């Protein structure tokens, strides 16, 4: 109220108008994302003003591409994107769940219910659902080695919602193998989380998407910069280092302080010698380990290597790559063994890694270096090929989600039955068991929450072109008979997700159940919306 006095131009929406603005925004966002959900959803092609194309089936990517203006919608979008950051998936589900909660609330409020009561009901239902989820989840035992079958089922469930079936199945194996290689390390050291960054995603604009493959080893997006270095070498020692091999003018002696040309030349030569000395130390090590055999020697450096140094290395028969990505330094060590060296003083044969094959692949101005046939790869590369950038980007998004799904499963040590089975089971639980224990009108809040859960199977059915009423009735019936079933997207009949191998991530589901009602409650409890110019939204 005081704000209105202070700023007479402020536009104020009263309680019911504010509520309806929020509900409409939530519904609007739901409508946009709804068609994305599930393996029968619609892929969206976004064409920008300059003709740039983006392809996405992923709610997260879609939200980021949208120019959202409505503050309520932004709030929901932020929650959904945070969902993706935390658990790697479930953006679309979060948005449609929030939208559905608001829709159900609208019905109740129109019948005269106070939002506060609804919110109380939501809170009770949320807690009960989370408890139910604990009972409902399927534990996965992680022994010394993760059970690949279950990991594959989870990854396949995710990937099939983003890519067509055979491509999804192909990527499933790739994704599971990549994370399994990594997770062997983490099982040895359980205190460390799985670092998915150790799986490199590299792409080539080339040929067709079925060429996407797992490289057990590393693919770097650059090559050697010297014409005389080998383009292909077998049995290679790999030196991973972070040593500058370029001549840097030392700070004190800037060029114009020299009194004559000879003095300058002398200084340059002296500084050049220091660089050459470092190169010589590397060559010494090469000669030591490669003498008497025909093994090769590859230097992969995070810092620069200038042409004279490259020349020296090339003459010694060494392949050298400069300016490697910082993360590749870690990945190389995980893939090839050895350790990263920060100074030439630390050079020993012990710090060298090993790769059976190193070769270069050139596409136009783009060069790729493959480091393959490594002994015990804990870090590997998923090489994505696609005919154009938007296809590559979409596959990359899907692979990222697949990796997250596998990682989540290993960390959760549990999965949840998919295809809408959990949502229907939870709904029946809330209506049949929880509602009775709640007193007063909060019951209606629990019921609204329970009905909102059904949005997932409903949307799945809708996207598959099925009759939602029939589907929901059939599913509810089976659940009442004690059968846990999900939706068959082809026929509309109930199926057992366990038999079909449709599993969702436990942590994703929990996160959705957690964050959805929180945002919905906040939006329902808004009393007034005051719009007083741009500066309202800025932190002050």
């Amino acid at each position, binding site marked *: 109220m005081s704000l209105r006095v202070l700023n007479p131009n402020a536009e104020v929406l009263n309680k019911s108008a504010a509520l309806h603005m929020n509900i409409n925004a939530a519904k609007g966002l739901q409508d946009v994302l709804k*068609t994305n959900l599930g*393996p*029968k959803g*619609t*892929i*969206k*092609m*976004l*064409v920008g*003003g*300059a*003709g*740039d*194309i983006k*392809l996405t*089936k992923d709610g997260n990517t879609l*939200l980021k*591409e949208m*120019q959202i*203006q409505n503050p309520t919608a*932004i709030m929901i979008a*932020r929650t959904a994107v945070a969902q993706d*950051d935390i658990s790697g998936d479930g953006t679309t589900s979060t948005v449609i769940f929030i939208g559905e909660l608001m829709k159900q609330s609208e019905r109740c409020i129109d019948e005269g219910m106070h939002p506060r009561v609804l919110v109380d009901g939501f809170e009770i239902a949320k807690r009960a659902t989370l408890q139910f989820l604990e009972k409902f989840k399927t534990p996965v035992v992680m022994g010394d080695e993760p059970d690949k079958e279950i990991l594959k089922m989870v990854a396949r469930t995710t990937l099939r919602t*983003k*890519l067509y*079936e055979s491509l999804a199945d192909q990527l499933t194996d790739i994704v599971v193998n990549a994370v399994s290689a990594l997770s062997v390390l983490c099982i040895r050291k359980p205190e460390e989380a799985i670092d998915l960054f150790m799986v490199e995603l590299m792409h080539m604009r080339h040929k*067709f*998407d079925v060429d996407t493959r797992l490289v057990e080893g590393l693919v770097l997006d*650059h090559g050697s*910069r010297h*014409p005389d270095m080998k383009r292909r070498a077998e049995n290679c020692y790999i030196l991973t280092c972070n040593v500058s091999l*370029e*001549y*840097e*003018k030392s700070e004190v002696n*800037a*060029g*114009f302080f*020299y009194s004559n*040309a000879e003095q*300058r030349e002398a200084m340059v030569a002296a500084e050049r010698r220091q660089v050459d000395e470092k190169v010589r130390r590397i060559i010494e090590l090469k000669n030591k380990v490669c003498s008497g055999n025909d093994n090769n020697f590859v230097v992969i450096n995070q810092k*620069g290597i*200038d*042409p004279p140094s490259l*020349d020296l290395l090339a003459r010694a028969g060494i392949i050298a790559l*400069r300016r490697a*990505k910082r993360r590749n330094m870690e990945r190389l060590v995980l893939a090839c063994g050895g350790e990263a060296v920060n100074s030439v003083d630390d050079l020993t044969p012990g710090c060298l890694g090993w790769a059976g094959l190193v070769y270069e692949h050139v*596409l*136009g*101005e783009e060069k790729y270096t493959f480091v393959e046939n490594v002994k015990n790869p804990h870090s590997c590369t998923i090489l994505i090929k*696609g*005919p154009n*950038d938007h*296809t590559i980007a979409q596959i990359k998004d*899907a692979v990222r989600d697949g990796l997250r799904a596998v990682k989540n499963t290993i960390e959760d040590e549990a999965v949840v039955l998919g295809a809408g089975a959990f949502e229907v089971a939870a709904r029946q639980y809330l209506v049949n068991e929880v509602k009775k224990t709640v007193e007063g009108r909060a019951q209606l809040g629990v019921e609204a929450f329970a009905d909102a859960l059904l949005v997932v199977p409903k949307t799945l059915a809708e996207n598959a072109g099925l009759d939602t009423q029939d589907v929901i009735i059939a599913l509810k019936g089976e659940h009442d008979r004690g059968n846990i079933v999900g939706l068959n997207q082809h026929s509309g009949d109930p199926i057992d997700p366990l038999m079909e191998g449709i599993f969702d991530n436990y942590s994703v589901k929990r996160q959705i159940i957690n964050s959805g009602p929180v945002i919905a409650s906040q939006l329902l409890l808004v009393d007034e919306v005051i719009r007083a110019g*741009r500066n309202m*939204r*800025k*932190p*002050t």
Partner: protein
Amino acid sequence: MLQDSFQATSRQPICFQVYPITIRIRRITLVPVYWLAAMREIVTVQVGGFANFIGSHFWNFQDELLGLASDPNNDPVFRNQCLNMDVLYRTGETQQGVLTYTPRLVSVGFQGSLGSMSSRGVLYNESSPGPSDVVTWSGSVSTHASAPHKKNLFLQRLYEEEQESFSMINGTSSGKSDSQREIQDKGIVELLDNHVEFWTDFSKVHYHPQSLYELGGLWMDPQDFDNYGIGKDAFSEGFRGEEICERLRFFVEESDHIQGFQFVVDDSGGFSAVAADLLENIADEYANTPVLLFAVRSPSSQMNLRSRKQTIFRELHDTVSFSRLASFSKLIVPVGLPFLSESKASTFLRIENEKPYHCSAVYAAALHSATLPYRMEPVGPTADSFDVSGAVDINGFVQMLAGQARQNTVAILDAAMPAPALNGKQHEQSLLGNLQPLTPEVSEDVEDLQAVESMIIHGALRSDGRRASISEVKETVNAIYGHAITRPMFCHLSVARCPLPIPLPYPSIFGNLVGQYGELLNSPFVGSSPRGSLEVHSIPMAVRLRSSSAILPFLENRLGNLRRYGLQRGALGAELLRNWGFADDELYDMGEMLSKMVSTMKPHSEISSDSD
């Protein structure tokens, strides 16, 4: 292999296929490249809206120079520029094997700020895919197309001429008379003057697909992205920073021996935080590579301060932005006057303050000139060529201006646009008089015995209208300083014969005292309309970077504002700074840094240094 021929001995030109004809407005992109042992690359980084406007003009100048150099019918001064474009440009090759020559540039802008230009450029695109070929999904596809940005008349002309040149290579030619062209040119100049919305509207340069990065997923209007706090997480969130650094690495990796980064940052809003985070990353990754930073802002970003709260807001932003950027760069040059059109720097210009297209043109010209020394072909430490003199690399530049006894890393940019004729005693003062600051908040007429300057003069004319030779310019400048009352401690002079060419899409900002070759006339042209690229073909330029105590007001204002609004007990902006993510000790360090900057510039610093 092109990329591989770098040996010191190889001075052979690598033969390219050069188009047999000149394209008039988009200068051809292929030029013969000479690999020189001493060539050292620069990566340019532009961050923010106004920075990209300046960049667009800057690259237009380079493109114009490239085109003029390859046209045998041109003034010889353009053919022997002795500028090494490879310092700023890279040679590449598309998957189809077509050679390309594009700026070594990373540009960061707001999503949607590219207008009708595709972020991937056009050089590397294969046939554009039809909407039907979604190969990754067998289900239904829905297409959401935003209304296409229409290419304006100028961009259409560029496209047509390019098509035309290809067909002419193939033997057919389309007949368009010169008079038709002239009419079209007039239309284009008028159109651009009134309808420039995006920086791409007047750009005639082809960019590499890695160059243009759009900051997406922020869910706000560009005009809301206007302070340090709002931009602080934009870099780190959602892989944005990673993507920008990757693109930078792409250009650094292929450089044999990078001499430095050249930053142009629009520090008037959230982009200054983005740039600061990027710089922090660079300091980490490329520790010994110097960064030269131009902190630019448009006049319009400095108007409309209504309330006291907004004033505090703005001043704290300025302080924070400056100190963060300064702490990561070897040399920082603040550029951007609040009232450019009324300033002395635009005595001979007609600028409209509210048009970024106009203002950026002035700053771009000054930036082009100021960056000439590290693009000149070095002939040797002592010898001078006929066309250029005074080559310095970025490191040399930084050492000269910031590395002397005072270690002052903030430089002032002065420009004389166009530079006056150099001859006759009566004009001697006019060169120094015409050099007016483009850096805001500097004091005039300070006597600083420790000042260090780097002056760059190119394309200078004598009063008879002929181009002055290198030695004439040197002698004149020597004479000027010989007679001057206040002299800097040290002045480095770089001279080039090649003037600043005015490309067609340059705005009409010249007053009626500026002649066709940028000479200053004694009697004005009749008519009051400003003169543009059709009337003025090139101009001589003089700019000066100086490290002088004239910068003191700029520094003291920032230090004062930080103390008043941020550090004092119960300061009005303390809460705001906390929201921006600054802890108390960070602010204290910031204050310490600023007061150190101030005290080094004070003439008697050892006495007046206070320990606050």
